[in-house]
């Protein structure tokens, strides 16, 4: 099916959440980095599943169970194709990015030895820091952190110097949730591979903005959350190269992940079920499949161009505000505008914007070490999706001016 020409007004019609008012004002939703709104088609899929197709999968001989299993596996294939994975076995359904990273840290982490090094960057969110710290505590490994510049770009020279034969895994965000920086991941991946390290790419902020081809990127793992890509909460993906996943021990035990169970010992199921213990989030998986189909029907290139235009437009205006500092000025960045204002606390700005109907994120964005680096308590972050408009930015700017007036007076 050829994608329909990109039209923001037509797309907005498909998202019921965008039509509502809050505090009597038209809602302006600029918190897409935290989670995206859901198109009607995803809501319909969830409703349809629970209304008519609900059954447990992989274990029933009856009609509904077979229908649900087919739909669940079709969603897996859909996601496989969307990110360019070789086989459906490489797509593991998880609870989300955090769960996916924990799975890798636990299961791949089993093979690590004391003194082995794990490389992350200074712009990682807590979800890509803490699982590795836990692994370091378990195994006596060393966590090393690639520094960044004030602009919010990785120090590539330092990165190369940190790589060595003890580096076992590079776990790095594709796009920073706080700064919007798009990291040069192909280069990072190929350099990490040269020392024999595996690479986990945290795609929580990239899957909804860029077209992803995991084979072209050549990453060993890629993770993302359903709810940030217009799908349901509680579902996410771990992509892993098949041979690698195959060589890893199970993460959690239970039904579905076993081949045969006796009290003496159990044998494990094949991929991908080896990593999907218990009844999975079936509705979530099917809902995520539906969100991915929705994206396939869009002109994603035009959508990305629109998002970039919004970002440039917003940054261009905010740059003229006295005392306002944009945090994250990488050359390659996505639709995130994080900022601080001299003498004003992000919480105060966020609260006043909220009362004017505008949803932004304030605080440390689950990147406390990054806030420490910039020596700020937090930022105000506006993050745009393809359904946002320049008119919304104009209203946001006026609301921000009013907030600053009240706070500064």
């Amino acid at each position, binding site marked *: 099916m050829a994608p329909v020409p990109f039209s923001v007004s037509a797309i907005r019609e498909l998202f019921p959440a965008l039509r509502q008012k809050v*505090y009597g004002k038209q809602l302006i939703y600029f918190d897409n980095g935290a989670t995206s709104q859901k198109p009607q088609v995803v809501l319909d899929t969830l409703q349809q599943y629970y209304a008519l197709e609900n059954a447990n999968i992989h274990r029933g001989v009856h009609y509904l169970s077979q229908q649900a299993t087919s739909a669940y596996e079709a969603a897996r294939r859909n996601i496989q194709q969307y990110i360019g994975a070789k086989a459906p076995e490489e797509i593991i359904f998880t609870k989300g990015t955090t769960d996916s990273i924990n799975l890798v840290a636990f299961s791949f982490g089993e093979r690590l030895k004391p003194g082995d090094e794990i490389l992350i960057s200074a712009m990682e969110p807590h979800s890509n820091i803490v699982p590795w710290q836990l692994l370091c505590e378990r195994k006596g490994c060393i966590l090393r952190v690639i520094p960044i510049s004030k602009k919010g770009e990785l120090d590539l020279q330092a990165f190369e110097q940190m790589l060595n034969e003890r580096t076992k895994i590079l776990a790095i965000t594709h796009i920073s949730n706080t700064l919007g920086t798009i990291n040069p991941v192909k280069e990072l991946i190929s350099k990490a591979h040269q020392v024999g390290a595996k690479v986990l790419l945290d795609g929580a902020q990239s899957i909804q903005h860029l077209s992803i081809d995991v084979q072209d990127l050549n990453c060993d793992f890629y993770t993302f959350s359903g709810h940030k890509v217009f799908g349901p909460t509680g579902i996410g993906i771990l992509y892993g190269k098949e041979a690698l996943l195959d060589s890893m021990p199970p993460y959690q035990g239970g039904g579905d992940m076993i081949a045969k169970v006796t009290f003496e010992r159990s044998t494990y199921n094949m991929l991908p079920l080896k990593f999907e213990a218990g009844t999975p989030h079936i509705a979530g998986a099917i809902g995520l499949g539906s969100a991915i189909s929705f994206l396939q029907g869009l002109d994603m290139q035009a959508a990305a161009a629109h998002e970039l235009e919004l970002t440039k437009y917003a940054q261009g205006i905010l740059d003229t505000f006295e005392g306002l500092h944009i945090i994250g000025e990488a050359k390659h960045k996505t639709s995130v505008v994080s900022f601080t204002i001299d003498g004003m*606390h*992000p*919480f*105060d700005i*966020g*609260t*006043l914007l909220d*009362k*004017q109907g505008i949803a932004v994120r*304030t*605080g*440390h964005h689950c990147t406390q070490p990054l806030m420490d680096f910039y020596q700020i*308590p*937090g930022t105000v972050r506006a993050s745009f999706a393809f359904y946002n408009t320049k008119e919304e930015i104009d209203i946001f700017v006026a609301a921000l001016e*009013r907030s600053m007036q*009240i*706070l500064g007076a």
Partner: protein
Amino acid sequence: MSIQVKQQEIIDEFAIYDDWMDKYEYIIELGKSVPTLSPELKTTERLIEGCQSNVWLATDIKDGKMQFSADSDAIITKGIIGLLIHVYNNESPAAILQAELFFINEIGLAEHLSPTRANGLLSMVKRMKTEALQSLAQ
């Protein structure tokens, strides 16, 4: 004046604002008028770390009455602190422990005391009560 009466006064004061922004403008003005804590009082023991904003609470007791002073890095939080201090100051520990805190809800600021908001205010109220309890025990 009892805690009950002070709370009712605040509710009456807020009744004139039907616009959210006016209400917050008032809270912000209040926040600006609350005296700041001197730096030496802003110790780690007095710090209540929130996810969004930080609060420092200093406690004293004079003639059997609680004397709170507090500060925050966020001005809205500080404005609400000003209201809480007004309600609890010069009251006996027993009165503070017994009183139901209802004005926050009534003036539409319940969100600021919700556990998910994590601006340090809920923890501050809890600590005010703990301090009151401790002075009773002494």
